[in-house]
Structures are given as structure tokens and as C-alpha cells.
């Protein structure tokens, strides 16, 4: 196991973990999964289900073991200040990369909305000619599924119903996780756990509402992933956000577990803080979504 080699921690030195098989294993797991999925998408004659199941199971097992190892190393005091700064920097840059991932989809939304639909509908020099030659009866407005009415007529989700509720849920959860953080710093472990449970509950409720909203969109509004560029941007943005909420919730569940096991100290608890940062990031993305996808 990763850290067994180190009998006595020497905090003047940076902790360099012993050789580990987890990263390689995780790679294998990922490859199994994506190979399975690619076979599924292209109807190839390979045992897709088996590959995907094996890949996902292996990945889950490895992620769990790897993180468990890291948590144990941390608890055994192997990490000096420099290591914990590494985790801070690392997490910040990781979140920055996530921001850029969402930026691609927001970029697509703005481009489609302000440029593409405009051109197709006859706005601007390029638009006048494009519209009159190819799409003579298309009138630019948002939401839109384009001149081909791809996916058929649809209605949009009203921002002032479930999405508003969701906004409140997530904003509140950002507060509760901060409360949990304060409790941890003040060494009130019980309070901390309770606030965390509240946060998890809020996150899960959000997910539940989001799922309800999707079902409604598909069943009653005829708003689907295939509803032209509106449906595409709507579901891809909210979908990836939902995925991040899911991950965040799982992360919160695991740190709450660690709290129960007595992990974290008032003055050093980066595992906790990392998750909190992530959760705030997910929250900020939602605010962006709420404004640009739902309201405007």
C-alpha cells in the first residue's frame, strides 16, 4: 500500500509516495470503459456491457482505494506544509480547468444565440444573403431550434418554477457548507457533521428537482436534447452541471464519512476545504446557468 514504506514521518522532506499501482489500474479501467462505450455507440460486435461494467467497477474500486490511501497518509501526519500547499494549488488549477470546460459550452451558447441564429434569420451582411437564399422564412428569435425546426415545436422551462427553487437550494447549500467549515475550525465536530448532512440533503434535492425538470421537459414540453441548438445547449450545459453536482455530492458524502471517522483537524483539513471549493464552483456555474440559460 502506498504509504507503508514510511515508518516515521520526516516533515522536513516533501512526501514522495512509494510506487503505486493505482494510477496504472485507473488507466486500464478508463480504457475498458471508453472502449465499451465506443463499441456500444457504433454497434460493434464486442461485449460492450461487460467492458463497461468491468471498467466502471474497477475505476470505482481504485478511486476509493487511492483516496483512502491518501486520507490515511494525511491522517498519519506524513504531509508537511508544502504538501498541503500542493493540494491547494492543485485543486485551484483543477477548478480552473473545469471553468474552461464550461466556458466552451457557454461560448457555444453565446455564439449560437447571437451570431448563428442571427445570420440564419437575416441579420448582418452575411445574414441577409444566407437567409434569403437558403432559409427564406426563418425568423431569428431565441429560443430556437433553427430553420429546420429540428426536433419539432417545443416550450422552454420557466425559470421561475423549479429552476428558481434549485437556485435557492444551491445558494443555501453554499451557506451550509460554509457553516460546516466554521464548525470544523471551531472544533465542533457534531455541528460540522450536521451542517454537512444538510448540505448533502440540499444537493440531493437539487438533483431530484433537476431530474423532475428533465422529465417534464421531455414529456410535456417536447424539449429534448434534439430540440435544435436550444435543446443542445440547454441540456449539455445543465447536464454537465448536474453531473458536477452529483460528483460534488458524492465527495461531500465521503468527507462526511471521514468526519465521522474522526478525520480532519481544526487547523488542517484540506480534504474538506477542497470539496468546499468545488461545491462553491458548482454553485457559481449554476448562477451563470440560471441567468444565461433560463432567464435570458
Amino acid at each position, binding site marked *: 500500500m502506498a504509504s507503508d514504506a514510511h515508518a516515521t514521518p520526516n516533515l522536513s522532506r516533501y512526501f514522495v509516495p512509494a510506487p503505486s499501482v493505482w494510477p496504472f489500474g485507473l488507466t486500464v479501467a478508463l480504457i475498458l470503459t471508453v472502449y465499451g462505450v465506443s463499441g456500444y455507440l457504433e454497434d460493434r460486435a464486442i461485449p460492450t456491457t461487460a467492458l463497461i461494467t468491468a471498467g466502471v467497477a474497477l475505476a470505482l474500486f481504485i478511486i476509493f482505494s487511492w483516496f483512502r490511501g491518501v486520507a490515511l497518509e494525511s491522517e498519519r501526519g506524513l504531509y508537511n506544509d508544502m504538501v498541503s500547499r500542493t493540494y491547494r494549488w492543485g485543486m485551484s488549477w483543477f477548478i480552473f480547468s473545469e471553468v474552461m470546460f464550461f466556458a466552451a459550452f457557454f461560448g457555444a451558447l453565446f455564439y449560437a444565440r447571437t451570431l448563428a441564429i442571427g*445570420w*440564419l434569420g437575416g441579420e448582418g451582411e*452575411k445574414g441577409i*444573403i*444566407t437567409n434569403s*437564399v*437558403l432559409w427564406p422564412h426563418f425568423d431569428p428569435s431565441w429560443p430556437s431550434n433553427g430553420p429546420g425546426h429540428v426536433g419539432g415545436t417545443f416550450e422552454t422551462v420557466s425559470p421561475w418554477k423549479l429552476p428558481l427553487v434549485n437556485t435557492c437550494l444551491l445558494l443555501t447549500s453554499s451557506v451550509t457548507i460554509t457553516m460546516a467549515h466554521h464548525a470544523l475550525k471551531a472544533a465542533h465536530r457534531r455541528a460540522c457533521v450536521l451542517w454537512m448532512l444538510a448540505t448533502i440533503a440540499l444537493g440531493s434535492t437539487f438533483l431530484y428537482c433537476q431530474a423532475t425538470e428533465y422529465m417534464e421537459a421531455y414529456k410535456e414540453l417536447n424539449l429534448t436534447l434534439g430540440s435544435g441548438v436550444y435543446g443542445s445547449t440547454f441540456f449539455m450545459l445543465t447536464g454537465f452541471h448536474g453531473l458536477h453536482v452529483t460528483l460534488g455530492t458524492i465527495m461531500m458524502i465521503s468527507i462526511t464519512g471521514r468526519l465521522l471517522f474522526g478525520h480532519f483537524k481544526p487547523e488542517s483539513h484540506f480534504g474538506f476545504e477542497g470539496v468546499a471549493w468545488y461545491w462553491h464552483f458548482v454553485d457559481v456555474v449554476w448562477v451563470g446557468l440560471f441567468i444565461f440559460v433560463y432567464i435570458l
Partner: protein
Amino acid sequence: MPSSSTQLSGLLRRLVVACTAPLVSASAFAADTMDKAYWNMPRGVTQVSHDVYSLHMLGFYFCVVIGVVVFGVMFYSLFAFRRSKHPVPANFHESTVVEIIWTIIPFVILIVLAVPAAKTLITEYDTSNSDLTVKITGYQWKWQYEYVDQGVSFFSTLKADANAARQLHSGIDPNTVPNYLHDVDNYLVLPVGKKVRFLLTANDVIHGWWMPDLAIKKDAIPGYVNEMWTRIDEPGVYRGQCTVLCGRDHGYMPIVVEAKSDADFEAWLTSKKPVQVASAASATMTDAPVAATAPAAPAPAAPTPPPAVSQVAAATSVAGAKKSKDDLIKAGATVYGARCVACHQATGQGLPPTFPSLVGDKIVTGPAAGHISQILKGKNAMPPFAPMLSDDEIAAVATYERNSWGNSAGEVQADQVAALRGK
């Protein structure tokens, strides 16, 4: 492959010439088909192309001068400050003044370049006040030209001789084919001295329309229309080709422009119109003679008027008459070689999974109606051929497919096609 040893020695000779020519003289190249600029960008035959050429040369001269100065200094110091000559290195390593100087000088040079570039660009973007508009549509792998409001429209594809020579292991030496890969069946004919505006779009994937002598190039984007313009100064035949990777036969989408004097152009244009009527008429003869009264209109697929490519085949056939199966197969083989082979291959086996095999295929060996409408309407990546082929040609190619590569599923006659056209 033709006798490989002579071919090889020919190649070697050519290679030697090619390698030494730059040293001897550029004229060694003239032995080839080349009669125009070979080392450099063509100056072209429009005002814009001249501007572009000068800009290109201006940039080039700047680079040469900068290069000579900068690398002159570098090679001088490589020589002068080698250890054997200059054993004790200096130790200076900073000078704000120098840094500022060599930031500002390039900046000034760039401005000198940017001003004429911006001017030319603004001219190139001005498509207003044109005398003629041509709509260009890119298909995999051919071009369609439509003279807007003139009722003239046709397709333009790689010349058949080049098409034969370009097949893998064809055994035909490309050097024996005139204008190999730079020639098409139907030229885009344009008037000299008139401002011609182009509307550019595509039907399947992105293509690029480039005519070096006119210095115009623009991408043809499916679903959008781009504009560009030209005013040609000299009559002549100018050649270019598709410049955006558009799939397997991207290299085989030439473009040829023929610039004619105004009068010749008008004559050409009118000569195109009546034939079109005949073609439309003959194609629909079996239905009703009414078609003749509405020449360019009764196009099956909405905005495109029937093109002129099929006119020869249509005009020479005796409309309505049944043809023998053998004749159909023979005619069909030609059509197949020109239109279908790119995707479905000479063996009929296609390039699965994208391009299906037609050997023993359900649609090909099934009811004729399904087969015909597949060809008329296309499906997914297969374009509709209704606007490109006459009833006779479709009948022929269908019969050919039904009776080749081990298929044997009877014949198809033109009236069957006519009956399904437009349905």
C-alpha cells in the same frame, strides 16, 4: 503498371533534373506543361490579384531584408566570437535601450505592412454593385453553378479521362492526360470586365472554392452563404480546385473558369437556355407536353432548377422508347463510373460502414421503385441525383447495378423513373 523499368528510369531522370534545376536555370522546368509562374504566386488577371501579389512580394522582401540583417549578425558572431578567436567571453547581459529599439523597429515594419493589407481586405469585402451573380454549391465531389435569375444551372465534375487515370493502379500515365486533375466537363463561363458576385454554399460538408488567378478563395459552408467577387481583365481559361478537405475525393474537385468577352458570354448564356427547355421537355415527354411551357420551373427538388449536364443524354435519346437491357447496362456503366464509383467503388463493394456495398444489397436487388427513389432522393451522405441525372441515365445506372457484380434483378426503364420523379 506499365513497363516499370522504363518508367523508373524516366522518373530518375526527372528527379535529377528536378534536383539540379534550381542550380542550372529555371528554364529546365519549362519542358513541362508549365507555362506560368512556377516558383511564385501567379500575378493573376484582376486588380485584386495584382494587389495581393504586390502585398505578397512586399511581405517577402521585408522578410528577406530582416533575415539578411538578423542572420548576418548571427553568422558574423558565430564566426567572430568562436572560442579559438575570442577566448574570453564578455559578460554584458542587459540593456533596456537595445530592448526598446528592437521592440519598436519590428512594430513599425508591421504597421507598414498592415496598412496596405487592410486596404486590400476592405476592397475584397465589397461585393456591392455587381453585374452578375453566380451561386456556387459544393457537393461531394462536384460543383454546381447557377446563374441567378438566368435560368441556367449545371454541375461541373472532373473530366472523364483524368478520372480514369487517377484510379489506384490505373496504369495510365497522368502526364499523358491534358490538364490532369485541373479540367472539368463543364466550365464556369464568366464575362470579362464585369463585376461578378459569387454566392457560395455547400450541400454536405465544407468545401473551398479557389481560383488562384483571380486571388479569390472562400469556404463553402453547408447552411450558410458566403460572398465574394471578381472582375476579370483578360479572357482566358483559369484553373483551380477545392481547397477544404471534403472527404475521399477532395483532391478531385477541380474548378475551371473560362472568361469570355461580353458578347461571347451573352451568346454562350443564351445557347445554354434553349437546350435546357428541350432537356426538360424530353425528360417529361411521357407525362405531358405541358412541361415545355414551363421551362426552368418544374424542378423536383425545391430551389434548384434542372441542370444542364444531362442535356446531351436526354436530347439524344428517343424519349419514351424502351431500350434493350444490354444498352442500358452499357450506358449505366458510364454513369456509374462518373457518379457513383467514388463512394460505392468500381467493385460495388463500397467503403463500409459509411458507403454501403451494393453487392447482393436489399435495395438494389429488391423492388425497382425503392432502388429508383434511393437514387432520385439520396439518403444521408448520399446526395439526391434527381437534379443531376436524366431519367434515362438513372434507368441505365439502376439497370447496371442490378446486373453487375453477381446481382441479377432485371432492368429499369426511363418511364419507371419518370413516374417516380417528384413523388
